């Protein structure tokens, strides 16, 4: 038999889920974007992944974009999205 009732202190997220973008049939001819957040070694890591991908696939090129800082969102993403067919980002230290 319950004797005390309290209220739940937790906030609720009400954002509806949405799908990710359709995936590519292959990476052949695709211009690969690198969106870099400036964390130490992150660009070297992303560039190396792109270099290794380019050895396996004939990429259409690589376009790197720098975020103003790791804690600030990238600017002009509309323009960037017209330049690239797929993007590699990174999170972590």
């Amino acid at each position, binding site marked *: 038999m*319950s*004797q*005390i*009732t*309290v*209220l*739940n*202190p*937790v*906030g*609720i*997220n*009400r*954002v*509806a*889920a*949405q*799908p*990710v*973008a*359709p*995936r*590519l*049939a292959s*990476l052949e001819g695709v211009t690969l974007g690198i*969106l870099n*957040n*400036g*964390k*130490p*070694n992150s660009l*070297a*890591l*992303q560039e*190396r*992944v792109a*270099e*290794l*991908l380019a050895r*396996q*696939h004939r990429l259409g090129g690589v376009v790197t974009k720098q975020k*103003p*800082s790791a*804690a*600030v*969102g*990238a600017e002009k*993403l*509309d323009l*960037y*999205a017209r330049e690239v*067919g*797929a*993007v*590699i*980002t*990174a*999170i*972590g*230290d």
Partner: protein
Amino acid sequence: MELEKKGIPTVTICTDAFVGLAREEAKNLGMPDLALAIIAHPIGGESLGAIHQRAEDALAQVARALTDAGGPAGARGAPTSAPAPRQLAFADDDEVTEAFHARRWTDGLPFVLPTEARVRAMVAGSGRAPSEVVAVLPPRWAGATVENIAINAVMAGCLPPHMPLLIAAVQAAADPAFGLYSVQATTHPCAVLMLVSGPIVKVLGLNVAHGALGPGFRANAAAGRAMRLVLMNVGGGIPGEGDQATHGSPAKFSYCIAENEAATPWEPFRVTRGFAEGDSTVTVFSGEGPHNINDHVCTSAYTTLAVVADTMTTIGHNNAGSVIRGDVLLVLGPEHAHTIAAGGLGKRDVQRVLFEQARNKVGKLKLRAMYKAENWPDWVDQTDDEALCPIVGRPEDIHIVVTGGPGKHSAFIPTFGTSKSVTRRIEAAGPR
């Protein structure tokens, strides 16, 4: 995520220490199927050889994630978090206490049980409807209702008159300029510091004398604690989950200070921030814990400020590297403030002197991590090791408040560095 919404397949390379945060964030922002390529932590401070090995480890995951071969399926279409029950029933008080601690709904300390009656009284203190959403708080991106804030305020030991202060502080923290997502999620030990200025300081009984930054005063302690509980329980800043702080900070328990206006030789803080003398305001800073400035010998403004400037220019804090996107807070004790003011310096003069004196040599800053990544003023010559770099972009980004009791101490509070303090007027509770 923004690129995915624009139809561009993306993959996020993520060190394994950050997978929990990345998955939670993707879910909370409505894209639970965002693709990750997971590698070993860390990448900072590793050799180029180790970075190349991480790239090898990521390679197949990246290729799979971007193509039909193994990319994420469509969204599951489920709501991102199931509605939790508003009311919870327990056998007795002890069971509530144990359950709240076990569910990580507390800061680890005892708390006041948020009963319906107590919460109703707290809501009434706001003069607002309980269901009103006053802000959306990351990294959970949950809407903070007046009732949510009131529940956490009850737990923290607040009284109903605290509510207008808490609501204004939560709204200030949610302002995009403050960058709450990063302030909450970072490995850095920043807390959310509330600085109160104006007539409400006396109304609430906030302490501005001995121990102005410390314990012993319910109004400060409970208000600061309520903010922390809101950030954890509504915003999702749970250590190791939405809060990735390496160490955290004692400042994260409670961090609410107030201006000692009677002891201030200059205009009040809120007036410097563009508000009216008769307003009450709260300003939020992404503050580290305070670092003491001890000066028992200086008798002139410039020698006192030299000690202050020296304390501000250690290179380990974030403002040393992330210059133009942050600001800092200088808490002057009344005695230091009067020594400085007696030298004929106004608040803006103090800001200018410190902006010019609190500078690090470029060559020294190169010792610290991330200097290249961050944001220095354009006019600093990064190729000249002898060139001097300030800790903020403009003199007015060195905020000054006077508080505390007698004694020759002040305090420097560095910040997250990619966050600007935000001031809001505290609106009096209307009749309901």
